[in-house]
């Protein structure tokens, strides 16, 4: 196989080589063996630029129509509305210079293609013009910066009260969510305590830990309540990416990071909106983390607050799963006595 590929390539190369020899020889005899561009070349290439840029614009327009509807659905978080609004604003702002500069480029490349008897205009600078096109982008960027930083501050500012705290724990290649129990406090942890079923290294002698609850595969969050995710990682850097909520934060070993948002649309509502009963919110990993980086997922279910409370109540506490002696064992102990 490799040999075949090499032979085919070598033959093709040889054939091209001979063809070029013949081509150059014929150009030599006609006296046109020059690699400088001729007026005809210039005309053709100038036109090709116009055709190319027209086709490029058509291609972009086609993608907007064809791919536009496949982008993320409307934001399912409160701050996501700001993100989407800002994104649209910025996209419009950058579309303008994109179109204008390309129109100029297309026009000039065609209009001023080299012709016989044409001489370029010696025009080396124009301070006024240069001032204008330094200041105008500066003003536009000031607007972008101002809106950008304002939105960033709004998005990152922690709500003062009523937050639901959830720990998100990343490891190769899955996610675990830990909910604070009745005391609404997450218990302490230490990576040296990771052992067996205690996957998160929770210090179980602390009372704040014992009512905590752990879930995998699917986590629930309540609609309309600010949720604050405290993130940790067990091994390498991961990134908790929740595109439907316009949220992302890295999970860094040895460090605690956090991110919060307020969900606004329940899973059921979103399914109805999209007319897709199979729709699910998901959590993905966006930071390369190893061979299954591409398949490190968790489903997110946005519930009404009542459903959420009900669901949470059904989950087992750590005291139940980690501390309680297994029933079978205790039976044996009793019997031995």
């Amino acid at each position, binding site marked *: 196989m490799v040999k075949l590929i090499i032979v085919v390539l070598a033959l093709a190369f040889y054939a091209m080589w001979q063809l070029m020899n013949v081509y150059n020889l014929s150009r030599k005899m006609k006296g046109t063996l020059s690699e400088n561009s001729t007026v005809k070349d210039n005309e053709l290439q100038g036109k090709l630029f116009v055709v190319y840029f027209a086709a490029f614009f058509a291609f972009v327009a086609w993608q907007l129509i064809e791919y536009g509807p496949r982008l993320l659905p409307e934001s399912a978080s409160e701050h996501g509305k700001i993100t989407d609004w800002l994104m649209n604003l910025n996209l419009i702002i950058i579309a303008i210079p994109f179109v204008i500069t390309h129109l100029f480029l297309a026009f000039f490349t065609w209009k001023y293609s080299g012709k016989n008897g044409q001489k370029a205009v010696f025009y080396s600078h124009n301070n006024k013009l240069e001032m204008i096109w330094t200041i105008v*982008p500066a003003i536009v960027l000031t607007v972008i910066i101002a809106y950008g930083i304002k939105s960033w501050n709004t998005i990152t500012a922690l709500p003062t009260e009523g937050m639901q705290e959830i720990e998100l724990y990343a490891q190769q290649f899955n996610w675990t969510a830990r909910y604070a129990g009745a005391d609404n406090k997450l218990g302490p942890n230490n990576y040296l305590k990771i052992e067996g079923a205690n996957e998160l290294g929770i210090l179980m002698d602390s009372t704040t830990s014992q009512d905590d609850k752990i879930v995998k595969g699917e986590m629930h969050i309540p609609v309309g309540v600010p949720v604050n995710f405290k993130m940790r990682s067990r091994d390498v850097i991961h990134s908790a990416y929740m595109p439907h909520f316009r949220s992302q934060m890295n999970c860094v070993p040895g460090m605690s990071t956090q991110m919060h948002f307020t969900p606004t649309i329940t899973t059921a509502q979103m399914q109805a909106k999209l007319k897709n009963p199979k729709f699910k919110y998901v959590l993905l990993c966006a930071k390369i983390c190893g061979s299954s980086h591409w398949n490190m997922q968790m489903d997110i279910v946005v519930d009404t607050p009542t459903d959420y409370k009900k669901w949470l109540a059904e989950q087992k506490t750590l005291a139940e799963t980690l501390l309680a002696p297994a029933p079978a064992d205790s039976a044996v102990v009793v019997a031995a006595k």
Partner: protein
Amino acid sequence: MSNFNEIPKETSALGNVKNDPEHKLYDDESHTYLNDHDDHDEQHWIEKYVFSTDHKMISKQYLLTAIVMGVIAMTMSTFFRLQLAWPGKAFPILEVFLGKWAPGGVLDPNMYLALVTIHGTIMVFFVLTGGLSGTFSNLLIPLQIGARDMASGFLNMLSYWFFFISSAIMVASFFIETGPASGGWTVYPPLSALPQAMPGSGLGMTLWLVSMTFFVISSLLGGLNYIVTVINLRTVGMKMTRLPLTIWAFFVTAILGVLSFPVLLSAVVLLIMDRGFGTSFYLSDIFIGGQALEQSGGSPILYEHLFWFLGHPEVYIVLLPALGITSEIVATNSRKPIFGYRAMIGSIIAIAFLSFIVWGHHMFITGMSPFLGSVFVFTTLLIAIPSAVKVFNYISTLWKSNIQYTPAMLFAVGLVSTFITGGLTGIILADSALDINVHDTYFVVAHFHIVMGASAIFGLFAGVYHWFPKMFGRMMNKTLGYVHFWATMIAVYGVFFPMHFLGLAGVPRRYYSIEAFEMFNNLVDINVLITCFAIFGALAQFVFLFNYFYSMYKGPVASANPWKSNTLEWTTPVEHIHGNWHGALPVVHRWAYDYSRPDLENDFMPQTSPLLPHEAEAAH
């Protein structure tokens, strides 16, 4: 050798050289510099072609190495594009090339990551840094400033050979049991620090780090040489404000490299220590492979800071030479002075300065303080201003010009387009609030491939087509050049524009397959389209390869100044001589852009032509 880099014995703007002891670099008694250089021609072939200290030969060595590396990296990209378009499908060709990493022709997920990693590393460092700066700074700095060679030919030779060793090690890492480094071209720890984390973090990662160490050494040796040469060896009359923009770009690029590569080296050294010597600069609280690591107290974020302190300047190290080359080619082929010469220099310097204070925009969501994030938003968006100025200046250079469409000129115009498109999406990414949702998605991949990948590759091609006659004394075929350009231009936007949509749909980068998520099911056909364009684009590069090697041997012999250009390199003889000019070095009387002066019949005026009687130097 002592009088090799002498400055001509002429009275000039720099003062009377002969009587000025500071400049007395040539030996009055022997007068050897006038004809000394022809004696060197009978060199041993090893000295001439292998361990050459001649900047022109070193430049060709860099270019050839970069082409080989480029072909390797491009082939890798077609391999992983096959997997992305048709996930899990068997392609026998993959097994042919990758053996056990593609059993039955299905790409292994670890190999997928390895391909992505080495593709990125090779393209960024070996093709667009080593290849671009190495080739053109070496070729053009001495030729365009009127010097006999680099300040130190020996260091220059070392620079190439370190580059070669580094390339060889990087390629060799493909042939080891556990495969090459696979943590992405940014190799963030702990993933890259712990062999337990992935196979590629074993020996492959060690080789990556060793290779990068040699690369940094090479880059520093080269960069210091470029800086010293530009500062000290300009010929008489070559004031800084008469330098072609190519030289300005190479000069500032070299400064960027010298200031930022050592920081990468320190990041690399600390990583080597963490990997091999039990330190914990980047490691803390890690439990992996069923075991808690002892190391604690370090932070992976430290690595990110160090990496991007180089990493962001690095993207301009890649881009600025391409912009310099474009300035030169656009002016020459528009037959018009570059518009706003001083503004161009100003923007190069502004970009270079700003590029040192924006690195945090790669780290908005690492948990950095939101206030610090705002600062980086501000500095990053500022960089768009000098970038915009450059674009406007290129476009106005075309206005009322008389464009000669050589293949080089086509690529230069293509660069202007890609630089605009990619620069504009940078504005989205720079907005931290928006970056939250597109960071580490295909939107970023689209952004940097268009603004850096495509633009810099276009600059590289433009440079090769334009200076081929200077390198090999022959011309490349223009028709093949045209075909190559249009095919490449179509492929570039065909491949990278749709990626914006993938990113906006939420597809993270470096995914082996997007099939694990139902939400991406309707995006698979976009991947198919992209892969088709990618294969088309890859095939188009064979047109270039053929043209390059054919023209080297059989292209029509070049004339001394085939593009009717003003700069000094076209005053040297076509055949290469040691020392570049027979006789005395040229003396410069004007800037590089006196094209189409209204008072002259010719549409160009070489920098060596003295001012005409009553002529004042063009205000620029």
